[in-house]
């Protein structure tokens, strides 16, 4: 089957899922509680997939993703609530500013490696949080009132665009360059790949979508506070990517869905939730450090079946 | 003294040693020669417990040591001077020597042995308080050997002691190896410098891609056409 044909099949399946959920919401079969769950899942998928590009594909160990989430959230909220811009425009502005923040953070820090990069990104995320904490215009520690604007439609198309852009980027020449950086930076450099450029590019794209998620997040809760964007939030996103399997986009998506649902069910027992969460983390890292999917994609399983049956697959 | 019987050693899925057998008798210098990647260092690492054989046995003085922890093997009397010397550059010469005697409790004898090593390698006495990372390659090799002797081994494993050293220094090192043997330490020597190795060894093994392909008295091997062609070259 041609690649483009497969692509359109996925789009069609996704749209059907969207239509069913939307219909159920409109008809009132899914109440606020569930529609909120679906929106939260969508936001977490966007976060997971955007960080997947940075860590899973490019191999840059960032643990400060919540910082860009915060930028997108606050900027888009300012544009809708304070300046009266339409929501979609504010979402895009929030994402662009987050991407710019990604560039500002990425250019100096991405030449660091491994643990040092991790700590630097964590530090930057905290700085971003503390900046918002100190700006009275956005309410400081008390937080900022935000209009409730996020709907399932916005959330769904946010996810769709994120996945399409990041999947296409990964499969492009640029994506292969990023993977080369992940596998062996020195070798990639020696092959003539501008490793700094690709690291910063992947980081900026990741930040862009984290900012988009921030916009959706901000307009889904009536209020945003700096304390929502601390490093626990960054760890949450990191955990989706790692549990899903570093390098697997579908793994990140599945982990984001699973963990969002699990944490919703344990909402009333926050301590138990965190204890289970941390035990799962430790056990998975000790016994299956490659995560749920390893580097495989869910589509690989289908392809494998076809190969077994029909022989030639590609073209 | 050391009997290796049919060992197989793997790095992940790659087999580095394929059914290697070898014997070292008390008081001998036995040398192991072969090209890069033939499995010489792997053999020494397996003997000293850094690697574990998948199959086969290793006996040292009648006791099996295959798969035992490195510290047990050091205690049993085997010291290993690794390839590339691996001195602790962040510590002084004297601290390196002290670490060589890590498992020994006889403090007085340790102090005497240290003096003995300073006699064998006077340059180390001069550099006693210096960080070992500041020593030259030859001096580091001496330190690595001195450090291993500090454990009072019965069997000393030497991995490429001549690597990267100037010819004059190589001579000194080989001379010292003979001295160490005279004091009663058995030696298993891995070398790429086959010429030098065969000239001081009693017996030798030639190893190629994980197999022992030839063995015998060192002086016979020096004359063997196969060895001459492959390892002695134009020397």
């Amino acid at each position, binding site marked *: 089957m041609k690649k483009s044909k497969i692509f359109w099949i996925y789009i069609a399946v996704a749209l059907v899922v969207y239509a069913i959920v939307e219909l159920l919401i409109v008809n009132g079969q899914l109440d606020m509680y569930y529609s909120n769950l679906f929106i939260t899942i969508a936001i977490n998928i966007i976060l997971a997939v955007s960080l997947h590009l940075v*860590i899973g594909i490019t191999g840059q160990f960032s643990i400060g993703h919540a910082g860009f989430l915060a930028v997108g959230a606050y900027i888009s909220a300012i544009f809708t609530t304070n300046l009266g811009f339409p929501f979609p425009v504010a979402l895009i502005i929030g994402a662009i500013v987050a991407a710019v923040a990604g560039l500002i953070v990425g250019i100096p820090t991405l030449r660091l490696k491994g643990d040092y990069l991790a700590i630097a990104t964590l*530090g930057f995320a905290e700085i971003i949080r503390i900046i918002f904490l*100190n700006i009275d215009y956005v309410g400081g520690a008390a937080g900022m009132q935000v209009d409730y604007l996020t709907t399932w439609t916005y959330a769904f198309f946010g996810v769709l665009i994120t996945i399409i852009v990041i999947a296409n980027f990964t499969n492009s020449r640029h994506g292969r360059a990023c993977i080369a950086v992940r596998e062996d930076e020195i070798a990639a450099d020696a092959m003539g790949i501008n490793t700094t450029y690709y690291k910063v590019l992947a980081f900026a794209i990741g930040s862009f979508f984290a900012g988009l998620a921030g916009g959706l997040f901000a307009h889904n809760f009536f209020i945003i506070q700096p304390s929502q964007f601390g490093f626990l939030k960054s760890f949450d996103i990191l955990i989706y990517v790692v549990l899903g399997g570093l390098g697997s986009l579908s793994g990140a998506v599945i982990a984001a869905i699973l963990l969002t649902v699990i944490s919703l069910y344990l909402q009333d027992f926050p301590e138990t939730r965190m204890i289970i969460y941390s035990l799962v983390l430790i056990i998975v890292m000790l016994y299956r*450090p490659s995560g749920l999917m390893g580097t495989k994609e869910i589509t690989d399983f289908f392809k494998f079946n076809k190969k077994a049956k029909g022989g030639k697959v590609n073209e | 003294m050391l009997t290796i019987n049919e060992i197989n050693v793997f790095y992940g899925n790659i087999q580095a040693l394929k059914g290697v057998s070898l014997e070292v008798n008390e008081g001998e210098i036995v040398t192991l020669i072969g090209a890069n990647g033939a499995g010489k260092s792997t053999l020494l690492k397996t003997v000293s417990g850094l690697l574990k054989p998948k199959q086969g046995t290793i006996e040292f003085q009648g006791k099996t040591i295959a798969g035992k922890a490195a510290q047990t093997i*050091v205690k049993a009397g085997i010291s290993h001077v690794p390839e590339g010397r691996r001195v602790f550059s962040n*510590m002084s010469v004297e601290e390196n020597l002290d670490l060589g005697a890590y*498992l020994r409790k006889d403090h007085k004898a340790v102090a005497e042995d240290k003096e003995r090593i300073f006699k064998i390698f006077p340059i180390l006495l001069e550099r006693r308080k210096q960080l070992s990372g500041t020593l030259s390659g030859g001096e580091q090799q001496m330190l690595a050997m001195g450090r291993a002797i500090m454990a009072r081994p019965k069997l000393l494993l030497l991995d490429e002691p001549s690597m990267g050293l100037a010819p004059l220094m190589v001579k000194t090192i080989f001379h010292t190896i003979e001295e160490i043997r005279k004091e009663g330490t058995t030696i298993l020597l891995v070398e790429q410098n086959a010429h030098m190795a065969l000239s001081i060894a009693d017996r030798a093994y030639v190893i190629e891609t994980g197999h022992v392909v030839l063995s015998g008295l060192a002086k016979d091997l020096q004359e063997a056409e196969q060895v001459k062609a492959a390892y002695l070259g134009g020397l």
Partner: protein
Amino acid sequence: MEWLQQLINGISLGSIYALIALGYTMVYGIIKLINFAHGDVFMIGAFIGFFAISRWDLGFFPALLLAMVVCALLGVFIERVAYKRLRNATRIAALITAIGVSLLIEYTTIFFRGAQPEAYPNVVSSKTFQFLGAQISMQSIMILSVSIVLMLILQFIVHKTKIGKAMRAVSYDVEAARLMGINVDNTISVTFAIGSALAGAAGVIFGVYYTKIDPLMGIIPGVKAFVAAVLGGIGIIPGAVAGGMVLGVVETIVSALGFSSWRDAAAFIILILILIFRPSGIFGKNTREKV
């Protein structure tokens, strides 16, 4: 003498950071792991000290000692159960496990006793006296002297004892250390024990000085102590002490200038500047050149 006063406050805070940073730097030096759970060991130390003093009527020094022993055991337990299997794992797997252990300790503590803070009993005389116009409390002097004594003991252990030499050998070259007959696993456990004991001591000192403790108190000092370790050059013991002092003084000055809500940002800005311009830290110039 406002400035002298701030300097004294800064050094008191800095010595707490320094004690925590020592454990970070030792553990990183030996197994290259950022032990995120280290800040939580510090928290456990504070609680052990609290119970020892207020429930079992122990004095300050017995409580300090008890906290150190319990934390040392906890540190070894964590290392044996969670980190030991990770020796050959990827860095990211190790870091995530450490984050997991950290969350586990925090929320298990909350699960058993709730998240409410506890007021630390007053065990050290709160007398103050004047020195060049600055107020110096007994507590500041106590913090500083306990910290200095502990650091001297550590320095002695690392440089003069057999186990200290083994620790340095393992941190430099694990394989070569094995060839010396050093039991690498035990050496790593001892490193955890010592580092965790220092964190436990820091916890008790923190409680006495700041009088309020809670189950999440370890997060921020933990991260800042890591900053201090990086600042001094990670893996370098005197560096951790210097880094902790510098950080404590800088934070105190930032607060004194009226920017107390930016205090935490100061630590992270220092971290980023040091990572970008001098990643080996203040003391990190002539170390780790493996040939």
